[in-house]
């Protein structure tokens, strides 16, 4: 046991730059670097917390509070400007369902590609393939190109791949709104099962009822800083009070 994720003094600043032109930069340099070439925006500021092994933690907050940025920092997609993130074991992020899917490939090819992107080996994918397809319930379309899928089918397959990658730390960003109600229930059951297996889950969602049901703890962010940290139902209540 111990901490699975350690976040210390995180700061992340984004440049609000709207052009990608060498010319503008040169002009700016020639003019003696007058003014800021770009505007800056602090997405996160001095954020510290720990997530223990096997915990299910929700990151809460309104739009623009920095939740997704924090998740991206934990997954390694972006790097912090200050502070450190440390993770233990394999991290798989569902920052966006189906990010690695290509519309021109068949469902089968996409399963292999996406599973490999999420860190599975060839052997693991071969072993899990049937289970993944069965979970998605779209067996008969598995050799159809994904561009012909309905959005529901697409999300089902993408979610099925992600939950079968068996990471130690599983990052989930607003994807539990997947498919119809029976499938949503199935997804939640799967999430619970992952948590029961002792995996660490970090969940970002606006569905507060769901969060108080499945999460142990909540971290509330507002304007890039941690405002509240505690049991999930208290975190939800804290957030609701300020709504």
């Amino acid at each position: 046991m111990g901490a699975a994720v350690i976040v210390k003094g995180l700061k992340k600043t984004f440049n609000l730059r709207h052009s990608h032109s060498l010319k503008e930069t040169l002009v700016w340099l020639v003019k003696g670097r007058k003014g800021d070439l770009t505007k800056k925006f602090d997405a996160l500021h001095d954020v510290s917390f720990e997530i223990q092994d096997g915990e299910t933690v929700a990151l809460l907050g309104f739009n623009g509070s920095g939740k997704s940025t924090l998740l991206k920092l934990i997954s390694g997609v972006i790097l912090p400007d200050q502070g450190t993130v440390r993770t233990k074991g394999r991290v798989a992020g569902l920052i966006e369902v189906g990010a690695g899917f290509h519309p021109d490939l068949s469902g089968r090819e996409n399963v292999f590609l996406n599973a490999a992107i999420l860190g599975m080996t060839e052997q693991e994918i071969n072993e899990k393939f049937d289970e993944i397809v069965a979970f998605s319930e779209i067996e008969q379309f598995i050799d159809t190109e994904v561009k012909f899928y309905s959005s529901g089918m697409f999300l089902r397959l993408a979610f099925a791949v992600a939950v079968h990658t068996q990471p130690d730390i599983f990052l989930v960003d607003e994807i539990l709104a997947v498919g119809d109600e029976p499938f949503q229930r199935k997804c939640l059951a799967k999430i619970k099962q992952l948590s029961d297996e002792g995996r660490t889950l970090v969940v970002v969602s606006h569905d507060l009822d769901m969060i108080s049901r499945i999460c142990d703890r909540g971290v509330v962010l507002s304007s890039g800083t941690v405002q509240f940290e505690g049991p999930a139902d208290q975190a939800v209540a804290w957030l609701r009070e300020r709504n």
Partner: protein
Amino acid sequence: MANSTDIYAVPGVGAGLLDVFRRRYLLKLIVRKELRVRYRGSVLGLAWSYVKPLVQYLVLFFALGIVLRVGDQIPNYALYMFSGVIVVNFFTEAFSNATRSIVWNAALVKKIYLPRELFPVASVWVAAVHFLPQLVVLLAAALFNGWRPDVMQLVGAALGFVIVAVTATGLGLLAGAINVFFRDAENIVDMLMMIVTWTSPVLYDWTMIRRLAPDWVLTIYQLNPVTVAVELFHWAFWYPTVTKPVELPPHLMLTGLAGLGMAAVFLIIGQLVFRRLEGHFAQEV
């Protein structure tokens, strides 16, 4: 990666090209995806990559030979040129696609962490897959001209291929990383690719440069990794078919090793710059 002394990993910081090697199964799938997507909805599919070089060879043969009468100066000129042309084709496709690879895969780069070196490396692999049919056409043309190579010449050709692949990977990493921040990079690379055909002895031979330029220019000219590879290919595929006395550049294998050294330098620079800039890819691309 976790080990006994420190079980905690820093997310988003990998081992660069070493990680690409570790995740070669993923590399294979990405290369396959690129090829599949490239030929989607096409009846001939990958066969197109045989048709195109064949046409290119015929154009060289008829246009340059019969119209421009290049054959008066260079025996077996079509074979001479084609063996250089396919080296340049491989280099330009690999380099310019690697330059665009990060931007093309923006959706992935933004959402999921994976070794980003995968994308430029995959571009070079895809170019290598397209190189194969060109090599087949070249071999057919060489055999037609009575080709009998010795082992060293074949080793030289393999060395030439490796030099170009490594150079393209290194420069592709460099330009691909810069292209995330300044899309001008891909235009600069496109421009360079127009020049590359002429900075190597593809459509003429090296003695023309020797006649025109001072020695030190010739030395620089011959240290260009693409030039090195082109000359190695001439030596392997064209020289054995020539019956008239022709002059090859001296010390080809030695220059080849120097070219490999140059290629390695490009690779190291490319990887270093790539790693420096990589941390900002997801937010800038």
